[in-house]
């Protein structure tokens, strides 16, 4: 465990926290948004905010791919699964996302066959093992996950497997960041770039953020010290009067990303004209669909589905949480009607969702605050 310990050293965290505090301009408040669910999880789990001065506020953006799936797309998945002879497969957290007709778990209780997989390649294996059934993979995720779906389609074609298709809900991070920056109700000062998305796309696609908006972005790793060092790099940019894209996660992320993965993505997928994001609405060119060349693996062409936009429950404020306008605990139903056991909104489903992360780990931050008050 020595490599983990090195990135979770409490004394080093204290030192970094003091150095970050020294870079704060007196009287200035800094809002730094992370757009990766893994970062949100680390921030709450390890209490990263506790090592920062009060003037630095971490804002949680739409980084959890489960959280941004609109309810209508859940219903579409259920409609596919309810067809005779279909096995629908999906990642674990997707099983509990509520749609207009309940979740995938609810659909299973009604007799559907929806199975959890670790990889789309496991869905292809199920197709191989069940030649008399149609196997559909419900694909979600950002650019980190999309290459694995693309690779699975390529393998299906190479093996001539015909009873496999993909219901593609992959989204891309850059248009979502643009939508957030265009949002009038949120003022941000900097971004923590998503580490593993950047492993695939590299750092270059973010260059417009400092150029057009004057905001620093630092691609960050996922350990507590990664995040603190990235915040230090952001604060150093402010202190130096710079706004640039920098790469803290250089042990993994290359500036130009993974060219092979990018080539596979460009071959297998095409950009959708529009895609609806929960909380952010319809965003142009923000999602992927199976390219015409691989149309026979496109579940949207193979199956009829409702394709209906379903409004979020009125009590749910996931939209505001996903944009960083509301903190999780400021939602009206947080921790009462909406809990990880009975989620109303998607942010409470995945443990990388801001609400679930705060629900699971935020209590420790509260306890620490109470102790400070008592002292």
């Amino acid at each position, binding site marked *: 465990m020595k490599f983990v310990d090195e990135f979770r050293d409490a004394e080093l965290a204290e030192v970094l926290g003091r150095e970050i505090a020294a870079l704060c301009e007196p009287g200035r408040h800094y809002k730094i948004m992370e757009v990766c669910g893994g970062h949100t999880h680390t921030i709450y789990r390890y209490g990263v905010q506790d090592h920062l001065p009060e003037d630095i506020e971490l804002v949680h953006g739409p980084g959890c791919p489960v959280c941004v799936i609109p309810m209508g797309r859940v219903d579409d998945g259920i409609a596919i699964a309810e067809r005779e002879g279909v096995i629908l497969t999906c990642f674990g957290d997707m099983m509990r996302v509520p749609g207009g007709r309940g979740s995938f778990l609810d659909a*299973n209780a009604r007799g559907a066959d929806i199975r959890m*997989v670790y*990889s789309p390649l*496991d869905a292809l294996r199920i197709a191989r093992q069940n030649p008399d059934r149609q196997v559909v993979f419900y694909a979600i995720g950002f650019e*980190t996950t999309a290459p*694995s779906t693309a690779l699975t389609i*390529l393998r299906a074609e190479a093996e001539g497997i015909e009873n496999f298709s993909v219901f593609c809900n992959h989204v891309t991070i850059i248009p979502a960041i643009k939508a957030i920056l265009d949002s009038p109700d949120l003022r941000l000062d900097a971004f923590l770039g998503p580490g593993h998305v950047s492993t695939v796309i590299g750092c270059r696609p973010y260059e417009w953020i400092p150029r057009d908006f004057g905001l620093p972005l630092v691609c960050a790793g996922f350990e507590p010290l990664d995040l603190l060092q990235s915040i230090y790099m952001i604060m150093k940019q402010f202190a130096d009067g710079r706004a640039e894209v920098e790469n803290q996660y250089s*042990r993994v992320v290359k500036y130009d990303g993974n060219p092979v993965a990018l080539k596979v993505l460009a071959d297998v997928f095409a950009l959708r004209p529009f895609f609806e994001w929960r909380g952010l609405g319809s965003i142009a060119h923000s999602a992927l669909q199976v390219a015409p060349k691989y149309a026979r693996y496109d579940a949207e062409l193979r199956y009829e589905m409702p394709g209906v936009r379903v409004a979020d429950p009125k009590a749910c404020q996931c939209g505001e949480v996903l944009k960083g306008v509301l903190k999780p605990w400021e939602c009206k139903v947080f921790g009462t009607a909406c809990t990880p056991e009975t989620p109303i909104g998607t942010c409470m489903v995945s443990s990388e969702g801001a609400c679930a992360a705060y629900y699971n780990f935020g209590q420790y931050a509260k306890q620490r605050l109470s102790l400070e008050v008592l002292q």
Partner: protein
Amino acid sequence: MSGTEGGGRAPSATHVDVPESGASCAAEPGCITCGDVAVLLTVTDVAGSDARCRDESGRAELVATELVGAVAVGDRLLVHAGVAIERVQGEAR
């Protein structure tokens, strides 16, 4: 079941499949795919486009390697959803 970070909650439904990759989406906390988590694995055996890999705890996983080119025993790979997305140089996590 998974020794990786994350994993995913096991839903209380029937039809929970344990894939042959050896990895699983059934351990607390979180879901490695939904959470955009990638894990560092070391190649122990190569078979065509796949590589048998292990993590620090010894958990084995079959990994597709097409996106990182030819791999050899001892190579360290960043793996997401059963697919290697990058090579990792040196010993750093």
